[in-house]
């Protein structure tokens, strides 16, 4: 029994070290792979206030829409497919649904619609799916995944009609839904939005000025300790503890320097990978300015209850973890990219 108790699940952390100048770097493709982002946080050392160009990027994240009680069959609407799914990329995710207990829906930018259903709903739907990878003992969850751009899913096709009747008459699935579209924005979604109760939301930007921050050496620090420290800074956890204090023995790992100032900016909402790309470009420009500390860090978190992980692979919350990556950029165009994923998931790209 004791052996079982100390057992922990497999964990995976991928650390990439390369340079933006290297033609083999895959940062942009890796950024594209994480579809549902809820938070981006940036740590700018030795910085009091972000430059205006950086600020404008923070403020210009694409806004997103929340539709209340959207019947999921509306996503198969012919006009919606024509105006949004076939043109550009749609990011859609059911909101306030728990991956371990509710039915979740995601619409990915490549036109793939994924439903994660409990057993009863799956049996009602009557559409081909496969058992979830995160079933424990008995088969209690199923994943249905269809490519809406496929010929069989074209309006009027067999698969299309079957899914439509399934969602319309057998399983009347309704959830709150977050939706955003690139590059069309709200215009291409307007037809769908107008039929339901919807609201537009701007991603929320919050800035925090930090002073006297004890900081490890980013290049030499152990990845786990570094990530822990970055997380602690973001979550505003004090690290002025001693190893003997009762409450917490957390200290800054391999304390190296003390930063006089630092700026921590975070953006949250349903964010698009495209905007993250722009932010990375802007941060690279920012790094070219002469300054004391020559690094910045960018951490991107996926939705905890998102049903897809890296790429299109399945995501399960019960067995822990969120998907996130941390990008550490240096003055000389080199970068460190730490990609993480929850247990049992496939290796990030």
């Amino acid at each position, binding site marked *: 029994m004791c052996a079982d108790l100390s057992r922990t699940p497999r964990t995976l952390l991928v650390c990439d070290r390369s340079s933006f100048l290297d033609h083999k770097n895959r940062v942009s493709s890796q950024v594209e792979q994480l579809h549902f982002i809820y938070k981006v946080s940036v740590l700018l050392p030795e910085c009091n206030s972000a430059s205006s160009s950086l600020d404008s990027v923070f403020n210009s994240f694409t806004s997103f829409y929340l539709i209340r009680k959207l019947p999921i069959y509306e996503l198969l609407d012919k006009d919606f497919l024509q105006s949004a799914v076939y043109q550009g990329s749609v990011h859609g995710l059911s909101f306030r649904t728990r991956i371990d207990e509710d039915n979740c829906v995601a619409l990915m930018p490549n036109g793939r619609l994924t439903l994660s259903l409990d057993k*009863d709903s*799956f*049996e*009602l*739907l*009557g*559409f*081909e*799916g496969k058992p979830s990878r995160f079933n424990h003992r008995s088969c209690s969850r199923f994943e249905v995944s269809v490519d809406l751009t496929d010929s069989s899913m074209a309006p009027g096709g067999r698969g299309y009609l*079957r899914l439509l*009747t*399934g969602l319309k008459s*057998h399983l009347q699935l309704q959830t709150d839904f977050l939706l955003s579209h690139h590059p069309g924005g709200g215009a291409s979604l307007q037809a769908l939005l107008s039929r339901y109760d919807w609201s537009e939301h701007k991603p929320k930007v919050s800035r925090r000025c930090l002073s006297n921050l004890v900081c490890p050496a980013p290049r030499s620090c152990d990845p786990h300790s570094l990530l822990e420290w970055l997380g602690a800074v973001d979550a505003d956890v004090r690290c002025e503890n001693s190893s003997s204090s009762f409450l917490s023995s957390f200290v800054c790992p391999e304390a190296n320097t003390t930063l006089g100032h630092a700026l921590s900016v975070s953006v949250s909402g349903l964010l698009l990978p495209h905007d993250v790309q722009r932010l990375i470009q802007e941060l690279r420009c920012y790094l070219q300015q002469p300054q004391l500390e020559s690094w910045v860090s960018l951490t991107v978190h996926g939705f905890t209850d998102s049903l897809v992980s890296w790429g299109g692979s399945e995501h399960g919350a019960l067995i822990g973890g969120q998907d996130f990556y941390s990008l550490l950029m240096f003055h000389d165009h080199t970068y460190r990219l730490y990609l993480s994923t929850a247990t049992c998931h496939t290796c990030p790209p």
Partner: protein
Amino acid sequence: MDEAQIYTQIPHNLVKSLNVKPQSSSKAAAFTEAFLKNSLQKPSQYDLKDMLTHKAVILGYARPKKESAKRSSKKAKGLNARQKRKMKIFQIKPEHQRYELFLPLHELWRQYIVDLCGGLKPTSNPQFVQQKLLKADFHGAIITVVRSKCPSYVGTTGILVQEFKHVFKIITKENKLKVIPKRNSVFAIEINGFVSHIYGSKFEQRASERSAKKFKVRGTIDL
């Protein structure tokens, strides 16, 4: 009537009018003996003299032996399963697999259920209706698969043509004969606004055996 009167001579005045000849008593006794000999089936078994002293004698009639029982068992034998299979008795010929051919059967079934449930008004007690339906015959009902472990069965609807122990055979509006296993599916039956759900896994009986079966009440049923 007196016995003596039977043995009396026929009066003379009647002899003339009836045109019969009176017999002497000895002749009559010989006749009776000969008659008995002919009428009795196995005269050697009986002592005729002895029999005549008794009153009850069965003449010209033999009690039927138990041949009829033999005959009925022969009838029940009929065809065995192999012969039935060979003759395809329970298979519906492709030319008869038409939805409209079975519509009258459906109408008949509706009447049967309405009769069974005593009118089936909207005010009827659903539990009472369900109790009746449990024991009823479903041939001719329109059934729909509402839930199934196998997604491709879900939504299939048609008239129930044949019911076997483990499968339903239904004919769809597209004139397709479909075989649907009872196990791992839930069926819905609609009649006059009453929709009943049948858990196929609990229904794996022949229709005739089901009528005698007692169903247990369960809180929740999983597929």
